[in-house]
């Protein structure tokens, strides 16, 4: 009796093992493995890229960006800046939400005003706070003016990540429901979300821009990078985001996988406090730290070659980028000499804070920096933590030395500087992300002068000047490198995919070849 049971069990086991064939997903479904799970289906509830990219498939903003980063019409067909505070938009007619409601200017007004509501509604409080009024022009419901509280030169640059919600269904549902069942105007409709497992979307046949080529999309969060790669190679997923650098060669040599890379817009750099009395208040110390870091070695050994040295925070397409700024050379001897000159012949101790789950190899980069600085006498105490704890610490401006990455979705270095390096001034909205309370009155004045310039060319010149002074004279930050955005495709699925500068996966631009 026992023997027979054993045989049955063995048979079952073999049958299960034998079903190693991939669960045949008909080729109308694209399975994408992403690094971080979506947090919520409320499009205003999170300003993290991992959430916004999903929302971009279900919702539309007034504007959108294409795969080259150009700003294009979406729910607004055209726009212009009327004066320093007013922006005018012509709205698209005949658009319907997924529940059948018509899109009207009232949905725009509702959505923008919703941004002002604090947790649990919106994380875009600052952007919402900048909006004074939304009103139709001369009674025409398809032309609206958005008035800001103060001049915001980069206002439209942000609109591709501000999504428009349906006023009626949002007002009648609880925040819990809104966070679980999204209703937008976008190319894909929500089907189901099994948290922690997958999110399934279906093509919106009535999309105003025409139905997207792929019928079903499934997003699977796989946080463990090596598992993500394994899923791709076995064919369980068709496309993965963020190929870990240590597995890059292995994926490249695999016959089933194809790698696509793109220089990222994101620059990785180190912020350093310059308060009086602190070692970083002496420019020579800042220079010494810069020159003690062997960025080439970091790129070669930590990033495995998948990074590009940078000399400034903005990337080439951003307004304010200056190609003439160069990196300081790697020179540990000179670094030691500068430290001695500044009064630190025996170096000093400093705490380096950084995240471990946000940027490519973030923890490893910090460790490498610590090792390199030790060689010139600077003793680094590492303080690595998850981004959920790291970013609030940045918001409190109490750090001394930190690793962070940045790319500005509005392509404007003025906005970046306002958030990152302007002297902290919460009342006026300056320095929100200035983690070490960096403060330089000269740079502040340059920035403030630039925000009132309306002519884009003159403004660009002013921003480039600010950039040059900040990087060459003041060493406001210590730049490291630009990351590389990496994706991998499952070859047999024949996915046609072009990476975007913002790193988002927008499925309507993806199709199956053949």
């Amino acid at each position, binding site marked *: 009796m026992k023997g027979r049971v054993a045989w049955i069990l063995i048979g079952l086991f073999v049958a299960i093992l034998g079903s190693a064939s991939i669960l045949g997903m008909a080729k109308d479904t694209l399975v994408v493995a992403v690094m971080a799970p979506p947090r919520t289906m409320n499009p205003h509830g999170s300003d993290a890229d991992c959430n916004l990219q999903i929302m971009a498939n279900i919702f539309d903003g007034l504007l959108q960006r294409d795969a080259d980063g150009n700003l294009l019409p979406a729910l607004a067909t055209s726009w212009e800046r009327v004066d320093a505070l007013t922006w005018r938009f012509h709205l698209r007619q005949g658009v319907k939400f997924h529940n059948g409601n018509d899109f009207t200017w009232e949905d725009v007004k509702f959505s923008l005003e919703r941004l002002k509501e604090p947790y649990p509604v919106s994380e875009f409080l600052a952007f919402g706070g900048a909006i004074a009024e939304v009103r139709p022009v001369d009674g025409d419901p398809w032309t609206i003016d958005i008035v800001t509280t103060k001049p915001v030169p980069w206002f439209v640059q942000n609109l591709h990540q501000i999504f428009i919600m349906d006023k009626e269904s949002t007002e009648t549902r609880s925040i819990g429901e809104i966070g679980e069942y999204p209703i937008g105007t976008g190319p894909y409709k929500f089907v189901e979300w099994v948290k922690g497992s997958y999110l399934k979307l279906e093509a919106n046949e009535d999309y105003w821009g025409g139905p997207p080529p792929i019928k079903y999309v499934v997003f699977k969060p796989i946080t463990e*990078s*090596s598992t993500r*790669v*394994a899923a791709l190679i076995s064919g369980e997923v068709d496309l993965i985001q963020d190929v*870990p650098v*240590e*597995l890059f*060669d*292995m994926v490249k040599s695999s016959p089933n996988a194809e790698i696509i890379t793109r220089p990222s817009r994101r620059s990785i750099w180190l912020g350093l406090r310059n308060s009086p009395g602190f070692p970083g208040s002496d420019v020579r110390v800042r220079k010494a730290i810069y020159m003690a870091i*062997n960025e080439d*070695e*970091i790129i070669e*050994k*930590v990033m495995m070659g998948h990074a590009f040295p940078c000399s400034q925070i903005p990337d080439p397409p951003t307004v304010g980028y200056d190609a003439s700024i160069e990196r300081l050379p790697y020179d540990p001897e000179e670094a030691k000499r500068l430290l001695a000159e500044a009064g630190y012949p025996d170096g000093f101790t400093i705490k380096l804070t950084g995240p471990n789950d946000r940027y490519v190899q973030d923890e*490893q980069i910090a*460790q*490498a920096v*610590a*090792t*390199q*600085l*030790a*060689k010139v006498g600077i003793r*680094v*105490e*590492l303080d*690595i*933590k998850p981004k959920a*704890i790291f970013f609030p610490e940045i918001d409190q401006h109490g750090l001394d030395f930190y690793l962070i990455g940045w790319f500005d979705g509005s392509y404007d270095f003025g906005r970046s500087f306002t958030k990152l390096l302007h002297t902290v001034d919460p009342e006026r909205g300056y320095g929100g992300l200035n983690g070490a309370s960096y403060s330089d009155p000269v740079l502040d004045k340059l920035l403030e002068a630039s925000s009132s310039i309306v002519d884009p060319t003159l403004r660009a010149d002013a921003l480039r000047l600010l950039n040059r002074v900040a990087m060459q004279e003041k060493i406001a930050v210590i730049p490291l490198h630009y990351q590389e955005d990496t994706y991998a495709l499952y070859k047999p699925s024949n996915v046609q995919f072009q990476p975007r500068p913002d790193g988002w996966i927008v499925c309507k631009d993806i199709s199956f070849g053949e």
Partner: protein
Amino acid sequence: MRSRTLNHYLRDPSAVLGSFLLLVLLVGAVFAPWIAPQNPYDPKVLSLQDSLLPPIWMEGGKAPYLLGTDDQGRDILSTILYGCRTSFLVAFSVILIAGTAGSLIGLLAAYYGGVLDAVTMRLADTMFSFSTTLIAMLLLGIFKGGGIPLVILAIVITDWVRYARTMRGSALAVKQEDYVQAARAVGASNFRIMFRHIIPNAIPPILVVAAVDFGAVVMLEATLSFLGVGVPINKPSLGMMISQGKRFIYAGKWWLVVSPGSALISIVLGVNLLADWLREEINPRLRKR
């Protein structure tokens, strides 16, 4: 009596093997600062150029990195020795503290009985039914940045129960014995009774519990460090090494996981072999036929 135990010990291959494993790693851990080729936590000696090297017998291996290096250039052998140090430190500390405190509580509860006994045992039972792993994880996850002392404390908080229970059981049994009643009748002080009669009898079972517990604590510390809530990142730990190394198993660099893993298994296996032997020594009825 003593020579009989020694005889049994020497005849039992598993006990000898176990203690050998344990001894090798213990010596290595204690003398790590002197015998390790490199102090992997001193950034001045590290070189990124030497990162991710395989063990010396494989192609690409390079002296003095006998077992290869990790992604920051740390020598694996050295890191293992220092990691063992942490494991032993935490395990010994926990056993010492939990053992002493737990035994004391169990002794007092058994001896004085009554409300003290009831309350203590209820408390102990409740604490014990919640997994040690879970409570340690929660405590360390909530109070971040406590370092090694906090890890020890988090484990002690639930670990003392097994010692209390054992001591209590032993004490209750002895309490009924004639010679204890006699001693009481004569007017011997409580203290004296406890020390001269109860404790000596309780020591063998407590030793067995401690031996088994040692292995469990080592595994628990490794698990906590693996999850990132144990030993801080700049202090060595076998669990943390395995956690950092597992990314690389797909890239074919298996030694980053297998080497520290083997060291960890060796410690626990060694202790368990000894514990098994000890248990059989102490409880003759269980001896193999």
